[in-house]
């Protein structure tokens, strides 16, 4: 049976920073991290909308496609070491995810495993047809009509703390604010009050530093010329040793790749931040402006000084809706004059799409290797590239119109400039995400537990 070890500090590791993240670093954390908690953060802005579409086709679907693979990889070591798991891999269907893991647990003989599903974030029924306004467009949710796919409120740490209190070993949620997944075990372990804003703010700092996994250990950071980081192929994922006062050492398992330094911590502290003094979460308005980092050893950085103010009155809601289609085509040119042939190719496609009156809301034509990432703001750093890739992408109302964009790029094979190769084309439906806000009392949360006999 799993019991929490009794130590001075709470050890929390991050086993994934996005839905497609590597799996083996989490296994290393589970095996050698001496963790109390292993947290997997796997939901991007659009992930739930995609999962909700899957669920609408199959009521047992709608959770993270790697759920079983990740849990199967780490759970034996977690059980052996007394490590409990929190993850938002429930996506659009936490209860189905929990049921799937319960089935796996029975097959594997994980007797006594207590699995909790946290629900309540799905507010689709509440906002459908409502006058809630989207921040981005100013339009009402009601106006989206049948385009509306999903609406999920960002829950705070409270329902996860409730699941912890019920003794769950594996807690599966849908949309919960990313740092709240990490704040919850700190609140549960240290008994912080829900109005101890400074403690919640510092706990949020720890969550924010951990939530993107490898991004605080040298991933999304390394530059072989200016900021070399060793061992990126075996990048160690981070863990925090949190003291009861909230100060935490950010570190990683010895003999893994990457580095934890004040610079890697600073870079992650400011990631996806606007006003550093007002980082809005469901639990607290966190203030990062007093955070200090101190290196106390190799790959050991102390983070302290996070603070906070009273939490916002309403919860943020991500609204997913169908918003037309994107058609895209690419083809490459190389050798002398590659850029000129690429430019001619773009001109031809543009002319064809106009002749055929393909209705595009927006069309983007560019040369990868020249101006695709930074447009005209990107200045050439050297000689003309010896190879370029033509890329044309357009947004359309119908899939049929979107298909024509890729088809015209592909047709350059036999109708365009000399030496065009490697054409690819694609059509995808756009799932746009809008933001609205909802009163807390409209978002009741529940915890559903099951124990494997």
């Amino acid at each position, binding site marked *: 049976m799993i019991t929490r070890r009794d130590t001075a500090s709470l050890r929390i590791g991050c086993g994934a920073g996005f839905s497609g993240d590597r799996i083996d670093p989490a296994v290393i954390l589970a095996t050698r991290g001496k963790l109390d908690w292993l947290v997997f953060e796997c939901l991007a802005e659009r992930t739930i909308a995609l999962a909700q579409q899957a669920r609408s086709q199959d009521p047992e679907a709608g959770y993270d496609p790697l759920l079983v693979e990740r849990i199967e990889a780490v759970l034996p070591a977690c059980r052996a070491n007394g490590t409990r798991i929190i993850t938002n891999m429930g996506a659009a269907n936490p209860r189905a995810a929990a049921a799937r893991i319960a089935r796996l647990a029975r097959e594997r003989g994980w007797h006594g495993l207590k699995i909790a599903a946290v629900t309540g974030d799905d507010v689709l029924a509440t906002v459908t047809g409502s006058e809630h306004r989207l921040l981005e467009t100013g339009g009402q949710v009601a106006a989206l009509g049948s385009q509306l796919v999903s609406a999920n409120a960002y829950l705070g740490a409270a329902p996860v703390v409730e699941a912890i209190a019920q003794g769950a070993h594996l807690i599966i949620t849908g949309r919960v604010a990313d740092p709240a997944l990490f704040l919850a075990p700190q609140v549960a372990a240290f008994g912080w009050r829900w109005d101890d804003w400074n403690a919640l703010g510092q706990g949020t700092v720890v969550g924010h530093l951990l939530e993107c996994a490898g991004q605080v250990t040298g991933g*999304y950071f390394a530059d072989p010329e200016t900021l070399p980081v060793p061992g990126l192929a075996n990048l160690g994922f981070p863990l925090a040793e949190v003291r009861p006062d909230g100060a935490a050492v950010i570190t990683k398992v010895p003999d893994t790749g990457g580095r934890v330094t004040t610079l890697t911590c600073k870079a992650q502290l*400011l990631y*996806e931040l*606007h006003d*550093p003094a007002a980082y809005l979460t469901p639990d607290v308005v966190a203030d990062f402006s007093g955070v*200090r980092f101190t290196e106390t050893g190799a790959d050991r950085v102390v983070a302290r000084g996070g603070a906070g103010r009273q939490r916002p009155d309403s919860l943020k809601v991500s609204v997913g809706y169908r918003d037309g289609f994107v058609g895209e085509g690419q083809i490459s040119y190389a050798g002398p004059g590659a850029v000129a042939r690429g430019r001619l190719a773009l001109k031809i496609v543009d002319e064809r799409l106009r002749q055929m009156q393909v209705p595009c809301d927006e069309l983007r034509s560019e040369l990868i290797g020249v101006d695709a990432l*930074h447009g005209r*703001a990107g200045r050439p750093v050297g000689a003309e590239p010896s190879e370029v890739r033509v*890329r044309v992408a357009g947004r359309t109302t119908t899939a049929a119109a979107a298909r024509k964009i890729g088809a015209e790029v592909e047709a350059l094979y036999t109708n365009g400039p000399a030496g065009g190769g490697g054409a690819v084309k694609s059509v995808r439906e756009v799932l746009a*995400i809008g933001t609205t806000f909802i009163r807390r009392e409209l978002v009741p949360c529940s915890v559903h537990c099951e124990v494997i006999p």
Partner: protein
Amino acid sequence: MKLRQIALARSGDKGDIANLAVIALDERDYPFLVEQVTSARVRTHFGGIVRGEVVRYECPNVGALNFVLHGALGGGVTRSLALDAHGKSLSSLLLDLDLPERAGPLPEASA
């Protein structure tokens, strides 16, 4: 001198807003960054990429500046036509910023 020689940068995204954190490799360079890397310079450097305003937050506690670029992600990650819809590569463009040479050596680190 390029910004890249004295700072690192990291891009983040939320909707149609990008943020670019610029962090001094040596904290003693922070005042120089404050003086040189203004929101107006960043605005000009990014040209047509940023349609809205550029807001700068100073973060002396970590020797960094945080730039918030409104309307920089082609309508938002989920509907953008851009190859790099998240704007992950925008940080690298910022590091190409030209800076004057610093006058004299770095000041002594304060206690």
